[in-house]
Structures are given as structure tokens and as C-alpha cells.
């Protein structure tokens, strides 16, 4: 009996070794390819993944790892050198920028794509929902408790709103989407600005009423929304398209109720002449610039999403091969990537002069 058991264990070990060894040898003999890593904001997730898929097909020697984690994580991982290309929606703040400079290398920051933060809801049987500025703020403040609140009903007479509590879903991680959304709310409401404020994470009033829920990343938020009747959340447009969720029309600066679609987002970009600072001084950029833009057909919550990359002084962060691959990929994103066929649903390409600023920056990366 003992022998038999002994041999069983031996077989198991031999089995494991047999399984491991080809894998290990497979790794050693695999042909030389460069692996890049991009980490952070999930706001541009579908766009980045589309770019990665297309780019990898034409460049089989370059592998790009996508990692989420939110804008905050993107900035942190970039600072620690744990990722090569950081992604952040709101531009980096001066404090963090100084930390980046302290590494002795020059960080570069520039927009990669335009996206919109949308308000999605899960109310069976209801497809259209208009939200005025005041209602929007009051819902996220927790002042409006039930869906069949008078003010919502007045604005949406045709919708059969249930007497159900509104569950507000927000992000659990440090998020650029949150930063954009709360900056917008602070912009349109003094109440919000004073009580809650803007930032990548805020102290949500609804949490303490037991009606707040949090998900990790835009994916996490959308997952919860899908499972929760009577809930509302803010997220990036592409997730809503991808998951077939219902979107609210938001009152814009001119008092019109607008849904986010390509034209209404483009309208926001064209209404303001965007100020993009020099990529070596990225922190000077203002998140607010595309928010609450004028124009009848303008969706109000629109923002750039940014990339962070090192200039790689004296090869401080990248090996020559990596630097070359990064340059190639980023150049492609800012040229080919901005073409219509390579843009994922829910995003809008950069204005060409903005893309050019990014391109100039990419050209300064040393390899």
C-alpha cells in the first residue's frame, strides 16, 4: 500500500515536471519580441484595445499588454516605472508632475483621444430619461431618493417611473472618469463644489445613506449597473454602447437635452479652441476646457484622455528596443489610429492640431 501511494506522489511530481518543462523551454526559444505595457485609465479601454489589436496584427514582433486600474493607478505605476506608457484622463497635477521630474527623466503628457462621460441607468421599460442640471446634481448628492420624484416626473411625463430607491453607482478606485464627472458637477453646481468637490476619488454622500455602490474601473461600475434595477451610474460612452445600456439626455449650457453621440461630442471639441500646453509641462492643462461647452447641439461632459510617456533621457527608463517600439506605437496612434476606421464606437478623434502636439512630443523620445 505504501509503495503504491509513494509512486502516486512520484507520478504527480513527474507529471508536473513534464507539464512545466515544455512551457519553460517554449519561453526560452520564443523569438525576440518586445513587450510594452500600458496601464491606467479605463476610460479609453475599448479604444486602446482596438488599437492594440490592429497594431499587433501588422507588427507581430511587438506585444502590448493592456492593464486597467484607473487613472490614479496609471499615474502611480508610471511614476514607479512599473509601466511604460501611463494612461490618465485628467492631466497630472503639479505635485505628481514634480514627483515625476524628480526621477531625473522628463515626463511627456499629451491627449490621445476624446471621449464622453455619460449617465447610464437601469430602469426596465424606460428607454429615455431627461435630466436637468439640478436633478443630476441632486441625484448624485442623494437629495432625490426615489425615481418617481416630482421633479423627475415633471421632466419625463411619458416615462412610467417606479417608486423605487435610486441606487447610485460610482467608482471604488482612483479614477479619471470620476474626476471628469465631479469636475463637471462642481462646474454646474455650487452646492456640489462646496459639499463634495472634484477629484479622482471623492467622499460620496450617497454611500452614507446606504444607497451608494462602487465598482472597480468602468468595467466594474457597468457590471453592477447591469445587475441592479433602479440604479444610475456615470461611465465612459463606449462601455454603454458595448453593453447596450440606456443613456440619459443631459441638459447642456444652452438648456437643450442632449444625448452623447459622435456629432454632439465633436461639437464640444469644435466649440472651444482647446489649449494644450507643451507636453513637457503637461500639468498646466485644464480639465475643464471641454466641459460644459456652449452650442445647441453640444454634449456637456466631454474630455481628453491622456498618455504619459518618458523622454528617456540617457536611457533611464527604456531600453533602445523598447524606446523604438514605444515611438512606433505612439506615432501610429496619433496618425493612423486617429483615422475613422480605427476609432472605436463612443470615441472621437483628436483635432489634427492637438494630435500634432503629441507627435512632436513623441519625436523627442530618445532611443
Amino acid at each position, binding site marked *: 500500500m505504501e509503495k503504491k501511494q509513494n509512486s502516486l506522489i512520484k507520478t504527480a511530481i513527474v507529471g508536473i515536471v513534464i507539464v512545466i518543462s515544455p512551457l519553460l523551454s517554449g519561453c526560452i526559444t520564443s523569438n525576440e519580441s518586445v513587450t510594452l505595457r500600458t496601464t491606467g485609465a479605463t476610460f479609453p479601454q475599448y479604444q486602446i484595445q482596438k488599437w492594440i489589436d490592429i497594431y499587433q496584427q501588422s507588427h507581430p514582433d511587438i506585444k502590448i499588454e493592456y492593464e486597467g486600474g484607473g487613472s490614479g493607478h496609471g499615474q502611480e505605476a508610471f511614476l514607479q516605472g512599473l509601466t511604460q506608457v501611463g494612461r490618465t484622463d485628467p492631466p497630472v497635477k503639479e505635485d505628481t508632475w514634480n514627483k515625476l521630474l524628480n526621477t531625473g527623466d522628463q515626463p511627456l503628457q499629451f491627449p490621445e483621444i476624446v471621449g464622453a462621460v455619460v449617465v447610464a441607468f437601469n430602469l426596465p421599460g424606460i428607454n429615455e430619461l431627461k435630466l436637468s442640471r439640478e436633478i443630476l446634481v441632486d441625484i448624485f448628492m442623494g437629495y432625490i431618493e426615489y425615481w418617481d420624484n416630482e421633479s423627475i416626473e415633471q421632466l419625463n411625463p411619458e416615462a412610467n417611473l417606479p417608486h423605487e430607491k435610486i441606487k447610485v453607482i460610482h467608482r471604488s478606485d482612483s479614477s479619471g472618469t470620476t474626476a471628469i464627472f465631479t469636475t463637471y458637477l462642481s462646474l454646474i453646481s455650487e452646492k456640489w463644489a462646496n459639499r463634495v468637490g472634484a477629484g*479622482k476619488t471623492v467622499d460620496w454622500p450617497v454611500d452614507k445613506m*446606504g444607497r451608494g455602490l462602487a465598482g*472597480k474601473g468602468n468595467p466594474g461600475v457597468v457590471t453592477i449597473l447591469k445587475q441592479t434595477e433602479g440604479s444610475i451610474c456615470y461611465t465612459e460612452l463606449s462601455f454603454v454602447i458595448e453593453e447596450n445600456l440606456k443613456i440619459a439626455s443631459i441638459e447642456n449650457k444652452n438648456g437643450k437635452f442632449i444625448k452623447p453621440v459622435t456629432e454632439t461630442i465633436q461639437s464640444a471639441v469644435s466649440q472651444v479652441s482647446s489649449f494644450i500646453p507643451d507636453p513637457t509641462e503637461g500639468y498646466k492643462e485644464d480639465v475643464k476646457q471641454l466641459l460644459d461647452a456652449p452650442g445647441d447641439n453640444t454634449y456637456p461632459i466631454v474630455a481628453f484622455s491622456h498618455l504619459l510617456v518618458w523622454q528617456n533621457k540617457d536611457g533611464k527608463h527604456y531600453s533602445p528596443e523598447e524606446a523604438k517600439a514605444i515611438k512606433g506605437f505612439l506615432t501610429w496612434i496619433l496618425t493612423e489610429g486617429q483615422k475613422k476606421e480605427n476609432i472605436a464606437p463612443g470615441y472621437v478623434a483628436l483635432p489634427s492640431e492637438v494630435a500634432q502636439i503629441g507627435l512632436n512630443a513623441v519625436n523627442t523620445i530618445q532611443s
Partner: protein
Amino acid sequence: MPLFPFFLRYFRRKKNEDTLHFKNIKRIDTLKVITSPAIIFVLLLFVWMLTVYFYNALPAFIREGLEVYFRNTWQAAEEASKEYYGLAAPIWGTIYTSIIAILIALPISIADSVFVVDYAPKKVKNFFIIISDMMAGLPTIIYGIWGAFVLVPFLQKYVMMPLYKHLSFIPIFSSPPITGYSYFSAGILLGIMVTPFASAIIREAYQMVPFTYREATLSLGLTRYEATKILLGYIKPAIFSGAILAFGRAVGETVAVSLVIGNTFNLSIGLFAPGYTISSLIANQFGNAFIYKHMLPALYAGGLALFIIGLIVNVVGLYLLKRWQKNVEI
């Protein structure tokens, strides 16, 4: 390599002194020399870990004092002066979910132990022990995926909803089961996960009850219920330490819990409300804490609390268990 021979010489001289003054002659203990580095490494690693947590948590204590554990605010602001972090909600969530877990695990593991030891035929007995071991070893992420996709929807529909509907006047059932992600779901999942650990300890203890006791209960003509009650009374300390050790496990579990707890800074007695635990807070926020000025120390303070809860719970649990085992052996 001048260091090593010196080290040996030192050892030898010390030993010689020993032998001169006190004991009988002994050769130097090569085994000790070989194994000591490993021991020192492990002990140092542990101390190092404690130091890392304490040192990194220190700024939070300096800035906020012990309030970091007792306030329920989690305000991460871009301006450092506005930042404020209080861990009350995650600490409450950790303790609350672990208590639910114990309340579930304890009856099940006691029943399981009695059944396996007293009633099950040998084959069935083995089968049950295998099942229990498997549950203990199953990757926690598998509990996580099952919990998030199967258990939570089930509990929400068939347990939480009816309870809320009919018994919402009782405070613990008063919060609506909005999504199902809640203390309750996390507690149940944790209960399932820690049951095998409690089972293993209780079963072992129950097996150790001296045979004379069993004979005595039988000779009194007691029913099986009465006999079992008496025998369980005898192993009470072991049951208690089993519960404590299971509690320790529940406190530290991360991924499975973070998938079902809801992750909000909520501090509520309502079972069906979403909440946070320390470990899922670390899992969610540690990745972006560096960019804030004061968040990292707060998270380390949370880690330190977890560290210390774990330490106390385990030391107490193990101590009680050992003391009881000694009593039985005598």
C-alpha cells in the same frame, strides 16, 4: 570568505566556555549551524514585515492620531490639506463579515464533526474528510467567481428579498438588498470558506475525547442528543479556539470578499447593505495610493490593524487550543 570561519570560531569558543563552566562535553552542533540561518531569515522576515507596516503607517498616526481607525471618512483630495482618511467602515466591515462567517461555520462544523466521528461508517467518514480538505484548499478565486456569479444573485432573490419584505422592521434586515453585494453575501461566502478550517480543529478535538467518557454517557442511558451535548461540553475550549482561528482566516481573506462586498464606505448594521473590508480596501486602493500625499500611510495603518488582529487572534486561538490539548493528554 573570512567571515564564516570567524563565525565558527566564535561559536566554538562560546561552546567551550559553556563546557568549562557548566555542562558536559558537547561537540558543536553542525545541524544548528546549518538550520539557524533559515530560522533567522524567517524570524527577521516577520519582524521586517511588522516594521514595514508600522513605519509606513506612522505618518497617518502622526497626522490623524488614532482617529484614523475610528472615523468614517475617506476623502482623497488632490490638495493634500483636504485629504482625510478614516478606516472605521472597513474595520467594521471586516469584523461584521467575519462574525457572520463564524455564526455560519460553527454549527455546520460542529454537526460535521459529530457526524463524521460518531455516526459515519468508515468509508463515508473518509469521504467527508476528503471533502472538507478539498474545501480548505480550493483556490479562493474559485470561491470568488462562484460567489459573484452564483451565490450573490441566489441570496438576493431567495433570501435577502423575502427577509427584507417581511422582516424589515428588525434593524439588521432593514436595509434593502439593493444589489446583493453586501455584508451578508460576504459573510455567507466567508462562512463557507472557513467551515473546513473550523471543522478540522473541532473534529480532531472531538476524536480526542477519552473513550471512557463515551462509555460513561452510554451507561447512563442518555439519548444520543444528551450524550453528544455532554461530550461537546467537554471540548468547548477547542470549539472556541476553532472559532477564533476561523475568524482569523475570515479576517484576512481578500479576493473572494472584494468581489461580493460592494466596496463602499458604508457603516451600517443592516446585513444587506454594501460595505468594505480592510483587505478589499487595500486590494482596491493600494494601486493608486502613491499619487496622494496621505493615502498610503492610511492604507498601511489598515494593514497594520489587519496584521495585529491576525496576530492576536492566532496567538490566542493557538494558546487556548494547546492548553486544552495538554489537559486532555494528562
